[in-house]
């Protein structure tokens, strides 16, 4: 089964508990005003890859606690995303799913994805309600759900998080809620 992916990060610490492999699923028609990731809106952008290939890669990274799916809108490729979640669960990895949909908008397949995930953040990004000091959410209307018992006892300490990756060739990548001031100061943005 194929999936369109905008970007992947082999390991990250800011998209959920522990060390996680992160996938930005390509394509989103929700078009939230002020969206941070408009580059992942087009359904034809990114690369096409196979679900099996992604799952195999997770298997070769033993230190992972889980995977995080965001985008784009993961639930607009609900078939492959369902397969990815099943693959992660088979390996004992936890699943963190971001969706701009509200639970009442879910189709049956979307609801399956929700129920199989350990943490889900739901709701559109609302620019007027933007708050970068919330952990794992960008606006105050977004809700964190714990559909499985795995992290139900987890205490979410609200904080502002940014992650900077410096490749072996010296390229910088920045993830999270970085401010323009910070991005300019490290020359990632002019």
């Amino acid at each position: 089964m194929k999936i369109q992916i905008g970007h992947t990060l082999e390991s990250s610490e800011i998209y959920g508990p522990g060390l996680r492999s992160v996938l930005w699923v390509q394509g989103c028609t929700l078009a939230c005003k002020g969206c941070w990731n408009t580059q992942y809106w087009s359904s034809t952008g990114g690369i096409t890859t196979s679900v099996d290939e992604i799952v195999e890669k997770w298997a070769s990274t033993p230190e992972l606690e889980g995977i995080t799916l965001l985008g784009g809108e993961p639930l607009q490729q609900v078939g492959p995303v369902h397969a990815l979640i099943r693959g992660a669960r088979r390996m004992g990895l936890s699943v963190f799913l971001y969706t701009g949909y509200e639970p009442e908008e879910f189709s049956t397949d979307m609801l399956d994805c929700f129920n199989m995930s350990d943490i889900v953040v739901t709701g559109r990004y609302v620019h007027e309600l933007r708050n970068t000091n919330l952990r794992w959410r960008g606006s105050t209307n977004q809700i964190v759900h714990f559909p499985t018992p795995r992290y139900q006892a987890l205490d979410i300490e609200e904080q502002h998080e940014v992650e900077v990756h410096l490749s072996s060739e010296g390229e910088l990548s920045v993830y999270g809620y970085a401010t323009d001031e910070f991005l300019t100061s490290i020359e990632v943005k002019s």
Partner: protein
Amino acid sequence: MSGVWREKSVPMVDQECAHLALETIGAVVADTSQAQCSVRIGGRTWIMSHTNGRYAIRYNARQAGSRPSWMDGLGEAYARQVQLKQERLARREQLTTLDAEREAIRQERMVMETERKALIETRKATVIKQAKALGYRVKETVQNGEVRLVLVKSG
């Protein structure tokens, strides 16, 4: 949902490869010193300077349309020149029977490696300094040659 910002190309740390890359995309490089050179391309002259461990050509990003289109191909051309340089060194090493030549090749590789490491250290130090100035706590991890810095600030 949070943002993703990624640099579009590999930073240029090797002067020889940077010059060859510029020539590949049609530029004429002149007035070369270790610190800077002039680059003539597209009917204009630009200055390429060595700052913070890398060679860069500055333009006014706030001015619409000021980023010249030839810059899009420069990163790829540079990466290609680095690869070609490594292949050249490997060929020279295979062919030579002289110890002095082997030593020269070893030195050249060492310079490239030193420049690469220096760039990483410089950029890491800049990120940490700027992050701390903005009130972040910083946690550093190195995994498979990649440096990961997690910056956290309480609300």
